[in-house]
């Protein structure tokens, strides 16, 4: 890619020309409150209003989220999971937004928000069931207010708007007491923004002014496709065309992400309508464990992003101001290690599914024809037990 104009301000936009000769506007401008080296900076519009304890809690969630991800990736490499979608590098985007969720809010995730899942109280072993293939999606999405993962790109954006429409009708938006209000936080990726479903979701949300926060983790890649294939302008600006306020935030800065998401969720809960947040981050790992990024992206790019690690800067910051000490960090490491052990051992001990249980999940009540099909299956399986006397094939 050839840069034709770059202003001296690193935050200003630049125009790049692709090998095919297309001009694209690129901008690295975003809201940032904590720099990659761990220094607090001021922003004109957003400020972080919480104490050090909140930041330390965020650090904890990020470390635990990363540990889960590391363990799951390793499990997949050993053949113990069918697949895993790594969240490595996206911890601040996930934890910062997750920290903004309050009592009545609903979260509608994509398939990579493992750190948010942990924050919502989803048991990591339940999360792994889907990827190990021992269940479909097996956590209580109502109790955790963390909906099922969605694997068909972009579909969940519409579901989030519909859920928010329901909230409007149920009177949980715009009440004087903030505790009586809720909103929907929906996650999707940069690639997903190309889906018709996502555009339609933006149309509906704007039309009905639903309490929906669209949280896009722009991790720069949709498998092998760079963001330029999906958008010729900084993604957050696309929302403007739909009449939805939007903002871009440093997705590797957990303070900024939390501040921006709190603002957006507050707007939504108050009844001021939808917001579109672009969290500018990076998928440090492969798309999934079946992917090989060396085929399409450069090591230098990965290295540049590694220097912007979302966890390191928070650790540096908190240590620097004495908000946490080494003992606290060691304790956190021990907690992460315990999570790692639980995930490693628990994954292998997950109960194996039985096909006969799945007919009953197909309809509210099992139609006779399906019951007969299940019974025939059971009789067929039993015929092997009779034949070899040791149960099953």
């Amino acid at each position, binding site marked *: 890619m050839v840069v034709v104009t770059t202003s001296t301000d690193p935050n200003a936009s630049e125009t790049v020309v692709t090998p095919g000769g297309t001009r694209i506007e690129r901008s690295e401008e975003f809201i940032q409150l904590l720099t990659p080296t761990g220094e607090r900076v001021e922003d004109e519009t957003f400020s972080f209003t919480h104490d050090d304890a909140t930041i330390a809690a965020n650090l904890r969630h990020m470390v635990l989220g990363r540990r889960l991800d590391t363990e799951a990736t390793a499990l997949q490499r050993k053949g113990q999971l069918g697949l895993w979608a790594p969240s490595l590098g996206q911890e601040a985007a996930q934890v910062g937004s997750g920290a903004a969720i309050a009592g009545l809010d609903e979260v509608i995730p994509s398939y990579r928000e493992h750190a948010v899942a942990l924050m919502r109280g989803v048991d990591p072993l339940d999360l792994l069931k889907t990827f190990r293939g021992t269940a*479909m999606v097996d956590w209580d999405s109502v109790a955790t207010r963390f909906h099922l993962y969605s694997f068909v*790109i972009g579909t969940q954006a519409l579901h989030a708007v519909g859920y928010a429409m329901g909230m409007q009708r149920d009177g949980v938006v715009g009440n004087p007491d903030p505790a009586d209000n809720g909103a929907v936080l929906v996650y999707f990726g940069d690639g997903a923004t*190309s889906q018709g479903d996502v555009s339609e979701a933006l149309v509906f949300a704007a039309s009905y002014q639903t309490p929906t926060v669209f949280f896009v983790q722009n991790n720069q890649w949709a498998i*092998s496709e760079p963001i330029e294939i999906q958008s010729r302008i900084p993604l957050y600006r696309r929302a403007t065309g739909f009449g939805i306020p939007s903002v871009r935030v440093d997705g590797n800065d957990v303070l900024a992400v939390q501040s921006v998401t709190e603002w957006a969720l507050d707007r939504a809960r108050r009844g001021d309508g939808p917001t579109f947040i672009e969290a500018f981050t990076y998928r440090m790992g492969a798309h999934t464990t079946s992917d090989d990024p060396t085929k399409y992206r450069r090591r230098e790019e990965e290295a540049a992003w590694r220097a912007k690690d979302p966890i390191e800067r928070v650790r540096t910051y908190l240590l620097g101001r004495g908000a946490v000490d080494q003992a606290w960090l060691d304790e956190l490491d021990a907690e992460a290690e315990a999570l790692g052990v639980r995930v490693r051992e628990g994954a292998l001990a997950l109960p194996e599914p039985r096909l006969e249980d799945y007919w009953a999940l*197909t309809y509210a009540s099992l139609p006779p024809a399906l019951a007969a*099909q299940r019974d025939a299956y059971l009789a067929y399986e039993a015929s092997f037990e009779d034949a070899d006397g040791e149960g099953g094939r």
Partner: protein
Amino acid sequence: MSETMTMAKALNAGLRRALEADPKVLLAGEDIGKLGGVFRITEHLQRDFGADRVIDSPLAESGIVGTSLGLALRGYRPVVEIQFDGFVWPAFDQITSQVSRMRFRSMGRLSMPMVIRIPFGGAIGAIEHHSESPEAYFTHTPGLVVVSPSTPLDAYWMIQQAVASDDPVVFLEPKRRYHEKGEVDLTEPPLPLDAARVVLQGSDATLLTYGPMVKTCVEAALAASGEGRSIEVIDLRSLSPLDEATIVASVERTGRAIVVHEAARSGGLGAEIAARIQESCFYALEAPVLRVTGYDMPYPPSRVEAQYLPDLDRILDAVDRSLAH
């Protein structure tokens, strides 16, 4: 001239030949450029034919198929890749309401020479939406040609025949067979696109199948021959239109038919084939037409897919039941 290669390589070679043969042929899809597609079917094709002819599409299946329709109106011959079977549905409207009926709607003036490649079927240990068998939705749609190769040889030739077809072709690639090798004769196509193939000859019963299940059926037939049973195996190859003559000729001889597919049972292609057999071969039948299929539920978690999918034992069990009549 013949070469041993995997089905994945055969498809790649077939697409390469199609791109060489006709400058109007274009490829489009998600991740098909640098990456060569998640299954590497289009590996190096963008490098060799350029980004204008091998296009990395934005992540939108309706967009991919809808814009391909427009390209076809301009005389191009788009070959689109849907990344996985479960992701074709955003394009379903474009395929069934637009692509399939352009000839009909235009009173025969326009044609739609498009190929929609879909890796399909299960047994790869995948998560949800990556193991679907959507063929019946397409065979139920008049105007679409629906085919599925089962060997590298057929893959190599059928993809080129599909590209040459002036009707839209839904091209279903049995992804669990991508890495299996076979002999590919590069000189001439063995059969026309719409012909079924008798893979194994037999006289006691006919197994009718396609795509991923052909190999399984052949294994079952060979196992049955060990017990003195002579089972015929037909690879349908074309699911729509069906090669009824080959089906009927076989069942008239054997008097017994068993259809095998991964897709769920009800309303599946097996139901259509069974109906045609009873219409055409009623007096030759010695037993009811049986089906060995996936069950009537969404595709289950991968740790039980082996129980869900037809296998050798289930096919042999059906053969036994048929012969017991």
